[in-house]
């Protein structure tokens, strides 16, 4: 059963190591219902591992992961039933057509047949995939594959969306549709956790943002709270991010490269 606790996702003292590499270093994280939560960080900072732990795709070495009021370890199947997931680089069944793939995913989530038909047709039209839906996915561009992965995540009306770089490869129209859709869904109580490297999108879309670095949480809060933490009043997310992650010495790096 899904509980009506305050938080859609709650991570307590969660840690994960891969051999001698610390991927996630004892982090605490709460995401409220209906919130769009951004997870930022340089490559290898532990964002994807954190998202995978939310979904039960990676088991934490210690700590607890609570999703929609359920301990993800106790009842992973119920958790997965209510979550829509888009991985960082989704590998789809390339021998299926786009239509066959979304139909397959809808059946996996037991979407009713008539509703399934209606939703699939709507999404294919919205993402400009009409006319190519009968082609094998192996012939799709990266952006088209991303659209199919996104449709598959939205199709069963999940309560929580876990999106790892969701806008990668999307054309401007589709990116705008995804952004508007996420805002609309948030107003209906659907929670979104997304990781992205596009800081403008994170700043514009996310209610709260967490910045990760080397497996640790460097900062967490809304834009104003992040500015205070970085002691950069009036600055944008890029400046805050670069200062907090200690990667602001860009000019010296570029000059060294041009020597």
């Amino acid at each position, binding site marked *: 059963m899904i509980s009506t606790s305050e938080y859609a996702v709650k991570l307590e003292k969660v840690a994960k190591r891969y051999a001698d590499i610390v991927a996630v270093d004892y982090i605490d994280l709460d995401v409220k219902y209906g919130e769009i939560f951004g997870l930022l960080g340089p490559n290898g900072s532990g964002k994807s591992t954190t998202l995978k732990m939310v979904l*039960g795709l990676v088991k934490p070495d210690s700590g607890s992961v609570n999703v929609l009021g359920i301990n993800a370890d106790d009842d992973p*199947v119920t958790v997965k039933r209510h979550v829509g997931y888009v991985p960082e680089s989704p590998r789809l069944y390339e021998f*299926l057509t786009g239509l066959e793939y979304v139909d397959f*995913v809808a059946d996996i989530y037991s979407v009713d047949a008539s509703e399934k038909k209606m939703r699939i047709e709507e999404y294919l039209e919205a993402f400009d995939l009409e006319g190519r839906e009968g082609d*094998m996915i192996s012939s799709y561009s990266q952006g088209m594959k991303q659209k199919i992965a996104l449709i598959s995540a939205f199709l069963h009306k999940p309560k929580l969306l876990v999106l790892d770089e969701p806008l990668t490869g999307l054309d401007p129209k589709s990116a705008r549709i995804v952004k508007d859709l996420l805002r609309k869904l948030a107003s209906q109580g659907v929670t979104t956790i997304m990781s992205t490297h596009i800081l403008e999108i994170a700043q514009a879309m996310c209610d709260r943002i967490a910045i990760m670095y080397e497996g640790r949480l460097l900062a967490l809060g809304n834009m104003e709270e992040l500015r205070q933490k970085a002691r950069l009043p009036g600055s944008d997310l890029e400046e805050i991010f670069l200062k907090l992650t200690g990667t602001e010495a860009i000019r010296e790096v570029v000059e060294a490269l041009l020597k």
Partner: protein
Amino acid sequence: MNWKNVVRLISVDMKSGRLIRGQKFRRYRERRVFQYLLYGGACVLGLAIGLAVGNLYIGLPDPELKSLFYQSARYLLTSLPTLILLYSLVITMMGQIQRMGVRSSIQLPYWLPITWEEHTLASTLAHLIGLPLASIILFSSAISVFSIFLGELPFATLTVPALLASVFLASATTEIFRVLQVRLIGAIYKTSGRTAVWVRFLGSLLFLIAFYIIWFSLTSGASSIALIETVAGAQNAVWFIPYVWLGMALASFMSGLLVQTVVFSVASILFILVLFYAAVRLNAKFGLYEPPAITVSRGVYVPKAGFLGKLGFSSLEAAVIRKDFKAFTRRRELMYIFVMPIVFILMPLMQYSGMLGKPVAPEASPFLYAWMLLAPGALMAIMLGTMIIGEEGSSVWLFYSSPITAHSLVKCKYAFICILSCIVTLVCGVIGILIAHPSPHLAFALLIESMLLIFALGAVSLRAGIKGADFVEVPRPRMIRPLTALVNFLLCGILMLAILSPLIPYAVTMMNLPVPMPIPKIDLYIAISISVVIAVVITFLFYRIVLKNAEEFLLKAEI
């Protein structure tokens, strides 16, 4: 041509080959000693064989026998380039067929400053890495040592480069085949429209069946000896075919015809150059060719009515079964599953009809029928069981992230194995009845036994498929760890014997087979009943184990 580029490209290919066999990708380290172990081993083995055969020749007491031995050795050595060419062609083609299923090709050479000549030469030489090169080293070292005993050292010095030229010839031919098949397949897709998916399925199936039949014909004991005799005898008759010119050069040298030796040697070198440049030109023209998209469906989308639902499968389970069916009919690397049962029927049929030498006696027809009914279905259940989880590849994240229970996963995967294997068995049974005319008792007994084997071995192999699943897809899909597959195959062999054992006394008495001790008579239906009990126990036990393994598999998802 930049030779350093060629060497670098070959080393990339060698590394990718070792990665296929490797287990750990994180912190991968080369072990240079093991890298050349195969070739060193082949050289040592070749020297030992040469020494042993040479000593055998020296030790022959009868001069007449010695002379016969000497003539036979010369006869074999002159036909060696053509024989090596044939085997290398089959081995390099086999390697190429395996690579057909590669999802993402390495396109790095296309944008790096590498010429088509360098790329083609590296690709041609890379085909030879592994078994073909090891075989050449083995043969060359054996011939070199043996020729000293034979007093034919000059001949051996010519044979070794001829062997190397033969494998290069085979490899260049395979390179041409590789480029042409990409272009040809693209053209077929373009013209066949929506039927492309079935054209591809049937075309691939026919090609693979023809290929395997040729392979088994070449490698089966009696046929391979017949082949050596044919090649040695027919080489002179087909001298106009460029592929035998290397053999002709050796034969001419052996006969002391020096002008002819030079002519055939020069012609061989020219033919190799022509073939290589043909491969370069084809690569330059079609190397970057992308096959057109396959359109499977057009028009209004209608969700499936759900026939599988009526059989008791949930929408999730039915969706996975439908998806697996599409995978096995659309993914070329999985089509093998259909090829093996067909080859298993065709080979004994060809033997039976006398196409592969001496025809089989009519009294052996019950054996033929038993083989046709028991082997293809059981083999298919074993192969499907071991591959059915690993074939998900890197798309397995969908299973881990979706609400699929261990019970549903096992139910739909096991059902798929059994349904497909039973269909194959029924088709084989009908063909068997038409050819071997078995008695109704025999047909019934074998049909029951084949079903028992499918259910039991399917469950056993599914366990191996879950425990040993390997989702690595590049450079080619691995699907199952080789050691797990081997152990499972042995286990299935033992369990197969256990299930069939109650029927052995009946088969012995029915066929009047000579046995060292008297065997008690047993009623056929009692024997079948005992067999059913054994099979049910095995199936039940392994199904329970599979369920437990599937739970662990879904819980320990690490992607």
